[in-house]
């Protein structure tokens, strides 16, 4: 796979609102044609960062480069970026087609060409035939599509999406996620999505920057982010992660020997254990789906530890168990697919829990 050229570059971007330090040294590159997400809790600076690309927010120091050019020299209305706003910002006094064609006003197109381009844009978002409707008479999902068509009609180099799906209900949101992914592949331009929904970011993105308190905590593809979060904070924010205290016994270039509470002694591969000192008190994390309850006659592929079922949450396709491993104070959560031959266990049942050192991640 060839590395695509850089479309957006942040160079030590700092932003202050008075005394409030909103962006604290952002360094990142976003590649051309990439579906990139800025993920984080509210107030982490993700929307501010997006707005510095659009040009709605200035920066206090550092630089934002768009396609190699310093963005500070380009006013917002001249940037090769277009935005889909959280509120959609559909112009309520205009029709759907006037909204979608708004950006073409200055292109000096004749009526026929204008109509054709607007028609194409509407077709792209599945709103053919809606052109004459009044904008305020649309449903949430339709407004979303109008906002997309309006932003894409200028063929921007970068499409900025500020929590575009947060106002939609769950079904609609999932449908729009798939449509956005398809749309991005179809038009091939860089999409930058701001979201606080980790699942949405994992589903849609090529790469994700997880932000906390004005900093990027980790920038990786979804799988790496999920399987090898670099900090406890990231691990906690993305999906569910169990944490157990652990002591580092020896640290070598090819891995780490640790003593984990309840699980015992095991070896963690170097790429899942950042280097550090021996004898250090640390934390080990693992995902619920990496643990398995063993039924009668089953043997563990790697290791097993006994425990007691403390809580059972039945989800239909899955059952979540909170299991108190012997010798550990807090229960760990594990998830099991409900397949034939695996009855749902009762609270209080003694169980054997299989786990593998491969699934453990060490946090310093």
């Amino acid at each position, binding site marked *: 796979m060839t590395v695509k050229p850089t479309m957006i570059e942040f160079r030590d971007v700092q932003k202050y609102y008075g005394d409030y330090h909103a962006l604290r040294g952002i360094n990142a590159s976003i590649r051309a044609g990439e579906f990139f997400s800025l993920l984080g809790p509210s107030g982490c600076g993700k929307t501010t960062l997006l707005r510095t690309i659009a040009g*709605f927010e200035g920066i206090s120091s550092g630089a934002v480069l768009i396609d190699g050019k310093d963005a500070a020299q380009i006013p917002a*209305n001249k940037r090769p970026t277009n935005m889909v*706003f959280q509120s959609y910002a559909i*112009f309520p006094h205009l029709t759907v087609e006037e909204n979608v064609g708004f*950006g073409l*006003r*200055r292109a000096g197109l004749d009526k026929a060409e204008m109509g054709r381009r607007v028609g194409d844009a509407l077709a792209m978002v599945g709103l053919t035939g809606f052109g004459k409707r009044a904008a305020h008479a649309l449903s949430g999902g339709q407004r979303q599509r109008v906002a997309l068509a*309006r*932003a894409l009609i200028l063929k921007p180099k970068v499409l900025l999406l500020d929590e575009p799906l947060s106002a939609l209900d769950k079904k609609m949101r999932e449908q729009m996620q798939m449509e956005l992914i398809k749309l991005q592949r179809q038009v091939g331009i860089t999409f930058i999505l701001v979201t606080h929904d980790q699942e949405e970011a994992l589903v849609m993105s090529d790469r994700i920057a997880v932000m906390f308190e004005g900093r990027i905590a980790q920038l990786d593809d979804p799988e790496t982010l999920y399987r090898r979060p670099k900090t406890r904070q990231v691990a906690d924010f993305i999906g569910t992660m169990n944490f157990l205290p652990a002591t580092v016994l020896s640290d070598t270039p090819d891995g780490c020997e640790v003593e984990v509470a309840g699980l015992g002694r095991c070896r963690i591969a170097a790429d899942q254990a950042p280097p550090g000192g021996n004898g250090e008190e640390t934390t080990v994390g693992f995902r619920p789906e990496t643990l398995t309850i063993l039924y009668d006659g089953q043997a563990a592929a790697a290791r097993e530890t006994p425990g007691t079922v403390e809580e059972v949450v039945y989800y239909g396709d899955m059952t979540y168990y909170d299991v108190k491993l012997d010798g550990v104070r807090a229960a760990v959560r594990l998830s099991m697919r409900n397949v034939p031959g695996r009855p749902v266990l009762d609270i209080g049942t003694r169980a054997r829990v299989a786990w593998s050192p491969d699934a453990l991640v060490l946090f310093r």
Partner: protein
Amino acid sequence: MRGGWFKVYALVYLVFLYAPIILLPMFAFNDATVIAFPLSGFSTKWFAALVDDPPLHDAVRNSLIIAVTTAILSTTLAVFAARASTRYRFPGKAGLMGLIMLPLVLPEIIVAVSLLSILLMARIELSILTVILGHVLICTPFCIAILSSAFQSLDRSLEEAAYDLGETPFSTFRLIILPLVMPGIISSLLISFTISLDEFIIAFFLAGTEATLPVYIFSQFRFPQAVPVIMALGTILVCLSILLLSIAEFFRRRGLARSGAKDTGGFL
């Protein structure tokens, strides 16, 4: 029967409010000079008398000039103030807006007396202009109240969206902001026009020799034979006021319908 008493109360209230206004057209079309029942017969002669009354025409002309100018000036000033107060944050904003809105609750007689003393001190001759000055002062807060709610209901990202799509700040104002607050501007114009048109105290103090319509009407009450004529004039004014306020309300509702916002009760 709680509902029953409420109905009686509401009815009495409405009679108290509107009976005097209903009396206006009754006596305006009555044959007799004396304002008393029983009515003596139908006549349009009092309306005819209005046509042949040059001082009245002067007063109407003065009032119209004052009201139109006041409406335009105070609405223009209010557009700037409302935009600034809803869009920008600056030190001392709350205090400043409070001071601008103060004339809303200040007794008009105080405004009139203080303006008159200042004008006399500055040796400025009383005229239509000085009345306009006073009226702009009392109308601007009303206009700001109307326009603030119009500007407030504007989503900030609408402006950003237009700017993002290549428009300049000025064309964004013209293409997006202005059309969306236009219903507010129209009702502001109409309401300040109405306030100015029937304002008496300030006009009485500051008009000098250029009487406005309310001042002229008041002066005519000294002559009993002029009273039915005033009734006729009053009838016309009531009809015009209802018409103007209906137009204002129409534009307010159309604005709501256009932006799809919920009706939270009008200014009126």
